[in-house]
């Protein structure tokens, strides 16, 4: 499964809104827990038992750590085992399986742990335990309240990742009102536009280009498209569930900076891309290791290892190791040259965007290549060429994609640092409704998919 069925999601949201508004505020979190678990059960079936067992381990470990027992390492390892087994057993080439839109039900031993959202569940559990150890929080006394934090349905599929103290407080103030519904739905509409129109159309184009004769330098076009696709696909999925959560007045963390695709350096890019995951690796891995490097001699090496770890989270393969190493090296080199401090900020910004997009496109190609030899053959061995009838075959797709990207970027440029729902709040009602109408019309005419899809949902 690559995405969430919109009818199922709508049914679920409607039922949860209805039930939530019928019960008193102290009990509303229970409604979210029950409906969320039912929704999750529907998606993963009996494997929910594994999630419940892991939640139990987290709960007990949290209490033991708080009472002074030295079980942090053991508990973290216990939580990590299913995720590691899943990653090591591997389910093949993720990109190819994803492209085929097929669930590769595997017979191998790791298939038991093929659970949607396992990564995010594990990361949330680990951060909870380490935060208790660091005395940032006290363990949650109510197991079910902790269970809601660990399996909160808008975050379980692909994040954003949260710290317990950020979410647990909000669960006590669940409220459904006109304002929350309005803000939530507008974010959902924005997400549908980005996902069903832009991301799906880019993906269809990648699909066609990848299986055409395209080769040589032109192959970079696929990398650039995949870079844009990943942003639109992933950020829209997050927007969708941020919208769902906002309906219940629970504000999830921001995960992508507006216009992150126009970053002028790799450092700037990573500061705005999947920020909650990067912060997680920073706080629970990089900072932990760097404490042992008191003179700061090996910070670059630790940074490189952190990127390797992020790459291995994507998949245990040679291609991912290469991808992670190159990403890490890129950041290290940029830091050495202090690129962000160069003179002439305007020139640096424009040239930086071109420089970043070019290298990011190369890395994106590595990210989706089935093997290093395939990529080498495609780029360096085969003669450079565009597919026959390129303009005739792809012109309409390119026009629709470009037009939609311009609309998306226009709104993000206007929003500046504001979140999309806040930006729409600043508009007059008539303008807001015109934006809604524009998005609905574009979705109905140019939308390609029947569900909200996410490349990272099986991670």
């Amino acid at each position: 499964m690559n995405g969430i069925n919109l009818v199922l999601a709508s049914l679920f949201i409607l039922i949860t809104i209805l039930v939530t508004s019928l019960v008193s505020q102290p009990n509303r979190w229970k409604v979210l827990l029950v409906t969320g678990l039912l929704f999750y059960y529907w998606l993963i079936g009996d494997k929910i038992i594994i999630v419940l067992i892991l939640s139990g381990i987290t709960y007990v470990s949290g209490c033991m750590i708080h009472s002074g027992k030295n079980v942090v390492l053991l508990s973290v390892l216990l939580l990590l085992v299913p995720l590691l087994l899943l990653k090591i057993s591997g389910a093949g080439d993720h990109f190819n399986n994803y492209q085929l839109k097929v669930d590769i039900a595997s017979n191998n031993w790791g298939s038991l742990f093929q659970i949607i959202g396992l990564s995010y569940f594990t990361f949330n559990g680990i951060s909870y335990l380490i935060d208790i150890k660091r005395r940032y929080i006290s363990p949650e006394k109510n197991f079910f309240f902790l269970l809601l934090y660990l399996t909160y349905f808008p975050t379980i599929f692909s994040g954003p990742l949260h710290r317990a103290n950020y979410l647990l407080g909000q669960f006590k103030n669940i409220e459904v009102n006109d304002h929350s519904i309005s803000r939530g739905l507008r974010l959902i509409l924005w997400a549908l536009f980005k996902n069903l129109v832009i991301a799906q159309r880019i993906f269809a184009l990648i699909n066609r280009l990848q299986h055409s004769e395209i080769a040589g330098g032109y192959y970079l076009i696929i990398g650039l498209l995949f870079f844009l696709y990943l942003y639109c696909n992933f950020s829209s999925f997050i927007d969708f569930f941020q919208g769902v959560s906002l309906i219940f007045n629970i504000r999830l963390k921001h995960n992508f900076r507006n216009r992150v695709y126009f970053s002028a350096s790799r450092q700037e890019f990573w500061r705005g891309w999947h920020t909650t995951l990067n912060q997680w690796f920073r706080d629970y891995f990089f900072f932990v290791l760097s404490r042992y490097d008191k003179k700061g001699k090996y910070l670059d090496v630790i940074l490189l290892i952190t990127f390797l770890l992020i790459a291995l989270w994507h998949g245990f393969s040679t291609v991912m190791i290469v991808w992670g190493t190159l990403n890490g090296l890129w950041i290290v080199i940029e830091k050495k040259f202090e690129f962000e401090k160069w003179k002439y900020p305007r020139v640096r910004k424009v040239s930086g965007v071109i420089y970043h997009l070019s290298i990011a496109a190369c890395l994106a190609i590595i990210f989706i290549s089935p093997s290093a030899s395939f990529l080498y053959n495609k780029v360096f061995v085969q003669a450079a060429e565009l597919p026959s009838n390129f303009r005739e075959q792809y012109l309409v797709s390119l026009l629709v994609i470009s037009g939609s990207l311009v609309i998306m970027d226009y709104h993000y440029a206007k929003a500046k640092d504001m979140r999309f729902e806040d930006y729409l709040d600043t508009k007059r009602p008539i303008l807001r409704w015109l934006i809604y109408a524009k998005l609905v019309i574009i979705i109905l005419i140019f939308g390609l998919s029947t569900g909200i899809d996410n490349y990272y949902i099986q991670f």
Partner: protein
Amino acid sequence: MLRSAIKLIVFFFITASCIFILKKSGTKDNANVRITLPKAMDTSFFFIGSSRVQKGIDPLIITNGYDNVKVFNWGITSGTFLNNCIVADFAIKQPGQKVVFIELAPLVDVLPDGLFNFATHTRLDLFGSVLTLTANQSFSEQSMLMLKIINDYFYKCITVRNEVKHIIGHTAGVKVNDDYEKWIGFSPSNRNGHYTTRSFLTSQEINNCRLNSINLVKYQVMISYLEGLAKSNNSRVVFFLPITSMKQAEKNIVIPLYHTLPDSMKLEYSSQFLQQMADAEYLLDINHLNRKGATTYSTLLIPLLEKYR
């Protein structure tokens, strides 16, 4: 909450009205297709699959190869294994003696628009068929699939892409370069838009297939059901490999599946057959045959089909 409800009702009412008006003024995307069904005295060959079947199997050539055999090309654009099994379920239940040739494809829980059109035209019980074919699956899997079908159908109802195309000057169907695509049936194209042969199936790929860890149980349950149904309906089901594939991941599923089938239930291409087909001149694009390819493929199939008559 009341204010939100009113706003949402107004919003949905305006949107639904616009969709309704567009749907009424736009063309019906299935207007150019007429589906004929076999009669009780007929001997029929059905070819069921995706657009590859639509592009590659010329029913007229195969009909001319035999006496008294009716040939139906029921390839549906974007057809997947589930789609093929649903259509095969319907074909087997038709009167007369039948051989149903089914293209092997990955099991994807997406039903193409064409299948909804097919169900409307033929009054096929889509949900009943899906429930029967997935009888071994758990309640959650089955209900998810049903919701997915409802979701896909709902989306098909609200999308106005074809209507807008019609309004801005396209005629019925989806125009792809010089050809109009039909959602079902033989839909040839004269174009030759590809010049490598790497997408053609080879005998090495069939023979050197590695046994992988993919779980094929869901496929096998559907195949067993169709086999049983065929026996009780004076029919046979025969599966065949697509002659071209765009993605290696697809071959990694369908070739192992092909090897699990008994010889009586699979169409076997000889290496000479595959060599004769592997010609870039026969390709419309990487995944489909053009008219020249369809003529060769259909002609080469005639002696292979002889034993099923």
